């Protein structure tokens, strides 16, 4: 493994211009320069990856994902630049680059390295939210991701003697990173706590890389089907009741990740390609949704002119056939049917429809009621447009990426999807939706309070430390006190023998003589 890693390191990973650009952007004191550096980095990265002979490194689907990452980054950059969010820009660029590198990495070690970088960058993005909650969530995010990284590292280390445990460690690590329950809480809290800009970047990279890694390492792991489905269902329920759009979106993200994991669990070639396609699509539409939601949030909930069309497009991108979100889900569904798990197909379709309804349609209906927000800036518009176009492109040409994609354009999935979407629209566009009463932080209990736990753990260790310290202090005091006591006694004794009148000196002399005499006689 050391050897493989060494080899990995010998080549510059794809995406390095982005990492560099990110670092520069973070440190350059001028905001404009930071942004432009970011764009330059994006272009350079793309050029290096696809036009300078770097392409063969990536399979088509991975390449598409990489491009999607770049697009997301570009969109995020535009959006972020509009809001002068430098740390988010820098960290986002780094994360993008790392995500590309992770995709290109052929070794577990390489994967581990780049996921760590993504994790660190993402944690920074979360914390850049600036609120107390963001910082706590960010710290929890960091520690959990690092925990996952450590598990991965342990897995790799154990892997050197080829035991089964090694695999378990790696799987566990990747599941944490993919926000599988019961450790999905970090994602909910982190994304929600991040700034709007931050959440744009966050939604794209970390989990997708984990999913891709799972797809590569654990295809056909049956347990994952169940896990994935449970995740999808469990996470979609809160979307029905959550009123905070971005928080709602985070639940939707988890839900969609569940779908992907289920696909990985199935493990057929069709399913895996579906997972990849869904990942690509999800990157696009989730980001788009976050852009829209972010833009709205930035204006305090007052809708600016020109945002509503984007919201509509975003909603459609989630599931409308021909747009980004549909393709992957459909292919996975077909694969499920092929594997005789038709009921599971129903589940994912329903979940998808619910997401479409709750994340896309309902906000469209309800959130744009208060106009008067500041006009949508050119950059925000450009960001959204870029993503919309990306979704369109993927939906249109996505089929070319994989031979399995054709399955999505069979009648069955189209019909099923159509019915589902229609039903969703029906519910959401009519007052029926009012039956689902919404409030912020609804069903929060489902979003396991991870940050509190993590912070609690940290504080707990701190308390242990304080206790240890106290014990050490007490021990040192005791030893010191004892030492002083012995010292004083020794000094006293020595002084008694050493200091005094000459008469005593002679007495000592005589005593010594007596002792010596008696000893020598004896």
């Amino acid at each position, binding site marked *: 493994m050391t050897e493989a890693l060494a080899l990995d390191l010998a080549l510059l990973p794809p995406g390095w211009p982005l990492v560099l650009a990110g670092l520069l952007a973070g440190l350059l004191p001028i905001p404009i320069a930071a942004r432009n550096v970011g764009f330059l980095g994006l272009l350079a990265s793309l050029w290096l990856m696809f036009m300078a002979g770097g392409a063969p490194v990536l399979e088509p689907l991975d390449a598409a994902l990489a491009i999607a990452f770049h697009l997301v980054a570009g969109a995020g950059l535009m959006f972020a630049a509009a809001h002068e969010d430098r740390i988010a820009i820098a960290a986002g660029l780094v994360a993008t680059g790392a995500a590309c590198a992770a995709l290109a990495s052929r070794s577990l070690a390489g994967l581990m390295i780049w996921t760590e970088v993504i994790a660190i960058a993402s944690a920074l993005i979360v914390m850049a939210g600036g609120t107390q909650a963001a910082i706590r969530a960010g710290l929890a995010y960091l520690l959990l991701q690092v925990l996952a990284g450590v598990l991965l590292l342990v897995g790799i280390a154990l892997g050197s003697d080829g035991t089964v445990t090694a695999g378990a460690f790696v799987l566990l690590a990747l599941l944490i990173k993919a926000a599988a329950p019961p450790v999905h809480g970090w994602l909910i809290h982190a994304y929600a706590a991040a700034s709007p800009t931050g959440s744009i970047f966050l939604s794209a990279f970390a989990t997708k890389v984990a999913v891709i890694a799972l797809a590569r390492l654990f295809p056909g792991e049956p347990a994952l089907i169940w896990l994935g489905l449970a995740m999808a269902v469990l996470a979609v329920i809160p979307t029905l009741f959550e009123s905070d759009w971005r928080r709602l979106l985070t639940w939707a993200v988890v839900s969609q990740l569940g779908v992907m994991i289920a696909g990985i669990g199935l493990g057929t070639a069709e399913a895996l390609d579906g997972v990849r396609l869904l990942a690509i699509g999800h990157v696009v539409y989730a980001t788009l949704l976050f852009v829209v939601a972010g833009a709205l949030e930035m204006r305090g909930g007052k809708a600016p002119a020109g945002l509503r069309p984007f919201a509509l497009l975003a909603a459609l991108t989630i599931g409308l056939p021909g747009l980004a979100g549909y393709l992957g889900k459909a292919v996975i569904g077909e694969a499920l049917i092929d594997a005789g798990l038709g009921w599971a197909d129903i589940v994912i379709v329903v979940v998808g429809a619910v997401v479409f309804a709750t994340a896309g349609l309902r906000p469209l209906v309800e959130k744009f009621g208060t106009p008067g927000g500041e006009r949508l800036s050119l950059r925000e518009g450009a960001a959204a447009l870029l993503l919309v176009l990306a979704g369109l492109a993927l939906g249109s040409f996505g089929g070319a990426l994989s031979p399995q994609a054709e399955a999505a354009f069979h009648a069955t999935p189209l019909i099923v999807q159509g019915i589902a979407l229609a039903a969703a629209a029906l519910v959401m566009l009519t007052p029926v939706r009012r039956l689902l009463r919404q409030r912020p932080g609804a069903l929060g209990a489902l979003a396991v309070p991870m940050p509190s736990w993590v912070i609690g753990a940290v504080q707990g260790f701190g308390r242990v430390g304080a206790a240890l310290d106290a014990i050490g202090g007490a021990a040192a005091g005791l030893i010191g006190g004892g030492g002083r006591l012995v010292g004083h006694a020794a000094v006293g004794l020595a002084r008694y023998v050493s200091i005094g009148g000459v*008469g005593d000196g002679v007495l000592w002399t*005589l005593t010594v003589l007596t002792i010596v005499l*008696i000893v020598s006689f004896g």
Partner: protein
Amino acid sequence: METLLMIGLLAALGALAVAIAFMDDLLVVTMLSGIFSFTCCAIFVLFDAPDVAFTEACVGAGVSTVLTLAAIRLTGRREKRVGRRASAVGLLVSTVCGLALVYGTLELPRFGDPAAPANLHVAPHYLNESAAEMGIPNVITSVLGAYRGYDTMGETVVVFTAALGVLLLLGGSQSRPLHRGDAPARADRDVILRSVATLFVPMTLFLAPYVQFHGAYSPGGGFQAGAILGGALILYGLVFGIDRLNRLVPERVLQVIAALGVLTYGGTGLVTLALGRNFLDYDALSAGPTGQQIGLTAIELGVFMTVTCVMTLLFQRFASRRSEP
């Protein structure tokens, strides 16, 4: 008879020592210690050591006592008696130690045993050969001046060192000359004393050279003669006043002569060295016993000079010191 005398004298010594221990008047103590010394002299005579008895009489009983008295004048006569914690322990330890030593003596050769190793190994050489080698009858003088002449030189230096020390401590910048009139009670007003002293001092002046030069034949020698002459000068000082003694033999003169005494002794050695022989090898001076006798005479002279002057000097330093702080 001798045995009984010995036992009696030794017992007297013990009694005196105990008495000294329990007296708190230092003047009395000093006098007792003088008596103690004299008793010792008697024992030494009894033990066939007239030379030692002679010296002890001059030095131990005489000079020491006078010096102590002179010192007591300066330090106070009464001892402050305080119950000392150490005394009980001291008594205990002394007793135990004494008993241990008594045990240790049990295997010693008996007193007066002619077959004791000490009497068989080196001493016979002195007794048997010194007549031929030295040509003088007093073996003690032979041993002192020739066989162990180097020890004696060391001894002379010790005496000189004492003088040097007392000069450093009480002389030079540390001297506290007597004010006019506060000299110690002058005894020269006492007619009897003065008369006796007038008689004694010249007599001792004659006695000293006799002891000096007759040392080869009878008990005596440089030490004794020096002590006698020194004692005479001290007596002179005691009776006629320290000022007159100081004028008679100024400190500087005494110091020079004392130094010269040491140098005479050492010089003899150096001369023998220069003559190509070992240090203090009197054979270098002349062949046979003559050389030895020349050497002995020279070194005895040196001893005499040093001892006389040092004894006087010591007394001078104590006696001519102002007592009040």
